[in-house]
């Protein structure tokens, strides 16, 4: 029965692992466009353009082949941006259209680009060599493949980042831990012509620096959290400073507002502080440490980039306008793995601290972050010893036979071995939110819960833990969830549980044995003694393989038949990472410690597919929606999260190209008005602005046309722009004719509206009975024209 695994099974060599999303949007500084409509965020190899109104991603600037490190305004064209990347190029973009206009090559990877509005042909880049960090000046002229001459302006041993270089009108500063340099006349300055301000060696090191946009002032943020406001910078002898101290931990980022009237600062506390001449204002509890701060040109908006991969857009009144969230799975591990929620068809994993992240992997979209632990983020007192956080360790979902959507979460503070809670949730359809039904504190005596499994149809949940017990929990309508039974076997630690497809058999792994019990009657059915080493994971097969139980141990993979209680096959593996079941087919995926993915069926020991993904896979799951060109994922797709918190899947070569070049359609960020609906390409009815308590009405195209006719001509967009669509809108659409009842209501609403132009309401009664649609649609139009005259 025992056979050696064949490593060189024919695998689909044509398959590639492609990244589908999940890069950090906070690693590098983001940039407001001049009109403050968009925020440009470097995110992996692309730049994402977010609307500052809605927080939606409107555009992706795709073209760089390596990490984008910085975005800068084009010195003269407001609608263009320049990016630098580690692929040793800078690129010029039209960010509204998402088109790369031009590219300029360098010799070494670039870590920053700076432009000067006052001298458009001069620009700076940051280069990094082995020993040195160099700030170089070059002539900004696109159209050539490679830049001619790069002149090193400043070099330093210390890392030059966007936090330690600040440009202003007529000068720029470069900060080092114990000193900072001021360079006047940036377009002409030489390395020699600098003014150096040194700190006493005992004084706290500089972490970040910002310049006043107009005056010769700057502010430095220090390691101990103090801010120093420096004046008289050009004089190396007589420079003065005053100290302000609020942050208790190092100040991470600083920025002047564009008018220069105030400074905003942020740090590990997660509090944004605004310093003005009369004092300071706070915006507390932004979620996690502030990494980057950006201010907009019109003095209205600030953006704070947080450690949890989110950006808050904050107004000048210190209120959070919107939050842009990247893939907010943070930290180095995903204790609860990647889970598939059957109802929303999304992937669920650990999000922000204490949150669960619901995520659509196929279009890299976040559904929401659900607060499970419900604790305030507390910054650590000491950065060396971070505060242990209670983490969500397990999560499970089920849609029961009577269509209730249930979720169970287990949370645990592993460092302190305390705060273990099992929380049972139910999705409330009327309020569209998750309601907490039951909290069970310390269900397993504060020992690590190893698995949490739901019965496939009933409100019955099984938890196993290292304390050696497997507990079943049932939902009582009156009293919530309560423990129904406790099972143990020779005080072996219980490592996993799995229900058969119909829910009639529950398999529990205790040590190196598997016990099969009837979950409803709690009778012992049989015991499979399977391995010499402890079992890591067990999983029942599906459909034609529903009688097979796949057992994974440290160094082998086995398939057992539950009916005959005998082993079907066994293969040796090179270390076990985890096993994933595909809920849509009878496939399973097994990932070993050498990062090789094996896709197999429980009935066959020969895998369907084997490939080394060459990255550490933290979690994986199958998601509905398949890839027709790959036989084993016709119904579902395997998504994997790497230790870099990026999401990957398998695709053929052609598909992988398509995926990387895909650009999202531009979403309008303007409010949805009738004119906007006419201008927009989709001619569907426009939703009214929804307000709580106000029923949503549909405005139809007819009404939109009506408004266009009634609006004064000088407020309309240029006629050539709307002419074609306007005429097209008047043409009959075959599909709309039948929706007469909907039209009626819309028109009736229209008649009650007060009209600014004193136009008589359109009479709509007569046409409603008219059976001929052709006559129908133009009656009202001619009438409107007549009324206008």
């Amino acid at each position: 029965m025992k056979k050696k695994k064949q490593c060189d099974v024919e695998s689909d060599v044509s398959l590639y692992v492609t990244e589908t999303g999940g890069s950090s949007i906070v690693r590098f500084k983001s940039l407001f466009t001049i009109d403050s409509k968009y925020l440009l965020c470097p995110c992996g190899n692309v730049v994402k353009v977010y609307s500052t109104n809605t927080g939606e991603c409107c555009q992706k600037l795709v073209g760089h082949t390596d990490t984008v490190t910085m975005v800068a305004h084009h010195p003269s064209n407001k609608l263009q941006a320049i990016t630098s990347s580690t692929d040793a190029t800078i690129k010029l973009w039209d960010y509204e259209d998402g088109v790369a206009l031009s590219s300029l090559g360098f010799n070494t990877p670039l870590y920053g680009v700076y432009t000067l509005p006052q001298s458009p042909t001069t620009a700076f880049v940051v280069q990094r060599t082995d020993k040195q960090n160099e700030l170089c000046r070059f002539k900004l002229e696109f159209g050539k493949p490679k830049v001619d001459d790069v002149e090193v302006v400043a070099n330093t041993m210390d890392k030059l980042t966007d936090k330690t270089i600040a440009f202003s009108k007529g000068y720029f500063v470069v900060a080092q831990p114990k000193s900072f340099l001021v360079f006047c006349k940036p377009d002409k300055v030489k390395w020699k012509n600098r003014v150096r301000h040194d700190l006493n060696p005992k004084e706290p090191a500089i972490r970040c620096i910002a310049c006043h946009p107009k005056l010769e002032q700057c502010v430095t943020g220090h390691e101990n959290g103090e801010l120093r406001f420096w004046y008289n910078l050009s004089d190396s002898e007589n420079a003065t400073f005053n100290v302000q101290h609020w942050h208790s931990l190092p100040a991470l980022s600083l920025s002047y507002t564009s008018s220069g009237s105030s400074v905003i600062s942020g740090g590990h506390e997660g509090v944004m502080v605004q310093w003005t001449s009369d004092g300071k204002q706070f915006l507390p509890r932004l979620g996690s440490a502030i990494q980057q701060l950006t201010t907009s040109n019109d003095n209205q908006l600030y953006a704070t980039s947080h450690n949890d991969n989110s950006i808050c857009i904050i107004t000048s009144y210190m209120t959070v306008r919107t939050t842009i969230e990247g893939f907010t799975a943070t930290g180095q591990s995903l204790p609860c793995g990647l889970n598939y929620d059957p109802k929303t068809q999304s992937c669920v994993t650990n999000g922000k601290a204490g949150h669960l992240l619901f995520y659509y992997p196929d279009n890299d979209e976040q559904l929401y972050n659900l607060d499970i632990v419900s604790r305030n983020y507390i910054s650590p007192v000491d950065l060396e010893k971070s505060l242990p956080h209670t983490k969500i360790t397990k999560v499970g979902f089920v849609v029961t036979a009577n269509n209730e959507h249930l979720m169970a979460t287990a949370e645990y503070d592993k460092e302190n071995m305390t705060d273990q809670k099992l929380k049972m949730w139910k999705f409330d359809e009327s309020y569209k939110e998750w309601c907490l039904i039951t909290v069970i504190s310390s269900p397993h005596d504060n020992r690590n819960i190893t698995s949490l499994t739901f019965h496939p149809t009933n409100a019955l949940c099984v938890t196993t833990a290292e304390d050696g017990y497997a507990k079943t929990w049932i939902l009582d309508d009156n009293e919530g969830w309560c423990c129904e039974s406790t099972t143990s076997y020779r005080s072996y630690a219980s490592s996993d549980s799995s229900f058969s497809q119909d829910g009639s058999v529950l398999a529990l792994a205790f040590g190196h044995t598997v016990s099969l019990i009837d979950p409803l009657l709690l009778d012992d059915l049989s015991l499979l003694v399977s391995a010499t080493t402890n079992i890591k994971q067990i999983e029942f097969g599906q459909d034609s393989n529903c009688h097979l139980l796949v057992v994974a141990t440290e160094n082998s993979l086995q398939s057992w038949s539950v009916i005959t209680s005998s082993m079907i096959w066994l293969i040796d593996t090179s270390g076990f990472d985890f096993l994933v079941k595909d809920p849509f087919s009878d496939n399973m995926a097994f990932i070993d410690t050498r990062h090789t993915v094996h896709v197999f069926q429980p009935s066959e020991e020969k895998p369907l597919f084997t490939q080394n993904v060459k990255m550490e896979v933290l979690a994986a799951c199958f998601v509905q929606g398949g890839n027709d060109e790959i036989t084993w994922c016709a119904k579902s797709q395997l998504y994997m999260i790497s230790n870099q918190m990026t999401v990957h899947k398998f695709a053929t070569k052609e598909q992988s190209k398509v995926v990387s070049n895909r650009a999202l359609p531009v979403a309008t960020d303007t409010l949805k008005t009738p004119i906007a609906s006419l201008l927009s390409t989709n001619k569907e009815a426009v939703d009214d602005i929804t307000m709580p308590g106000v029923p949503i009405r549909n405005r139809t195209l007819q009404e939109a046309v009506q408004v266009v006719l009634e609006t004064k001509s000088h407020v309309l967009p240029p006629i050539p722009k709307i002419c074609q669509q306007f005429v097209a809108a008047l043409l009959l659409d075959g599909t709309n004719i039948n929706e007469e009842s909907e039209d009626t209501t819309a028109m009736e609403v229209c008649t009650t509206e007060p009209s600014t132009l004193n136009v008589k309401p359109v009479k709509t009664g007569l046409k409603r009975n008219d059976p001929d649609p052709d006559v129908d649609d133009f009656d009202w139009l001619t009438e409107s024209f007549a009324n206008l005259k």
Partner: protein
Amino acid sequence: SSRYKSTEAVPIATAARKHTQDYNYWRSLQFPIIVKEYGAVTNVEFQPTEPHHFAVTASSRVELYSKESNEVVKTFSRFHNTAYGASFRSDGKLLVAGNEDTQVRLFDVQGRVPLRIFKGHSRPVHVTKFCNNKQQLFSASDDKTVRVWDISTEQTLNEFCGHEDYVRCGCISTASENTIVTGAYDHTVRMFDTRSNANTITINHGCPVESVLLFPSGSIILSAGGHSIKVWDALQGGKLLTTVSNHHKTITCMTFNHDCTRLLSGSLDRHVKIYDVTNYKVVHNIDYAGSILSMAVSPNDETLVVGMADKMLSIRHRKQCNKEEMKEENLHLSKRKQKSMMRGRNFVPNKDDIVVQHHQKQHLAKYDQYFRKFEHSKALDAALVAHVSTNSPEITVAVLQELIRRDTIRASLSGRTGNKLVVLLKFLCRNISNVSFAPTLLKVCELLLDSCLETIENVPVEVSHLFKRLQNIMHSESLLQVEMTKLLGSMDLILSSSIKN
């Protein structure tokens, strides 16, 4: 998103008791009304028709109680000696009772004087019941005989002499006119046929039989005697179906609930147990103060009357209005009160109105306000004030837990002197033995001892006294743990051996 999340206190988990339907049903009986009688209450029976009075036989009288007022409406006292087993006819108009003086007396419920007196028994008569045809009644006596009487002529129609000891219980089959079942102290239950004058079935119960019952179908006989109730099938010639023994003293009475789905049994061990007749499992238990001799359930289970040996009669009524109605009433009241507060809540804005959300100030508890400002020591003080720490210790524990999480527990525990330390120590003494608080409080104790270690010699007397008390509590708790572990071990031994067998 920047809202402060207040500290969550996990409410104390009470021992999970399964509230079954039966539990809720029988729990809804109100607190008993106790009436003192003249002697031991040997029999209670409800009038089968309106107004459902109940007849209580105690000492030398039979009293008719009103279910509504719980007071005596009529007394039949024309007995020369102790009366026994007063019973109603099915139309509720006639009442019959036995007597110590061997005579059986028949009364009109409206009247006072006996209508008929049946003479013939030679020993006291304990059981009297009407037959189904309304024209006859039967009586069972200590003279070991059972007689059937004709009401109109006062003549004995049948005399059954099968029993060999006192006959103390009996019942009529509602399914057939001619069947009488009696139980006697000779350990037997006998079924007699009035047509053939014969003893058709004899069953040996094994103990003196105190009570017999027949299911309405007439085929299943229940007999109670000793500590057990036995169920017999009459159609199979008296085959034993099951034995139920849940009492630890003699069972004296049995009755069905109104629809015969539950069986109630009363015993000298002062319990009434309620069984599901489908599986004869106990579904509920009601405790009484005295040894129970008799019991009756009114139609619709509205009233449970129990007579006891210590001359007490307990009357329990079901709660009249159910909870939901009460709640609705309360809601209605509060609605009226809050009418002024609700003004404008249902306002629907116009289409063009810009809705500005009212900025609601978040209400926080005192300790949360301090937590928000990172004033941890003050937060602990706020959680230790008397009304928080005594009424809801779980909040104080949650605050301590939060301090541990924030890693500021040392700082907030140190530097406590005088009253602040006393309050904390008292709280620890009171709650450290609570299982759900113990993990947190033990940690706090440890840290507190660490911080007080240097100054422990010159603390005030009160504080050192409290430390000693805490030590004593811990000591007794550890002894208790040892005992519990021993008990658990021996229980495991018993359980595992019983599983093997």
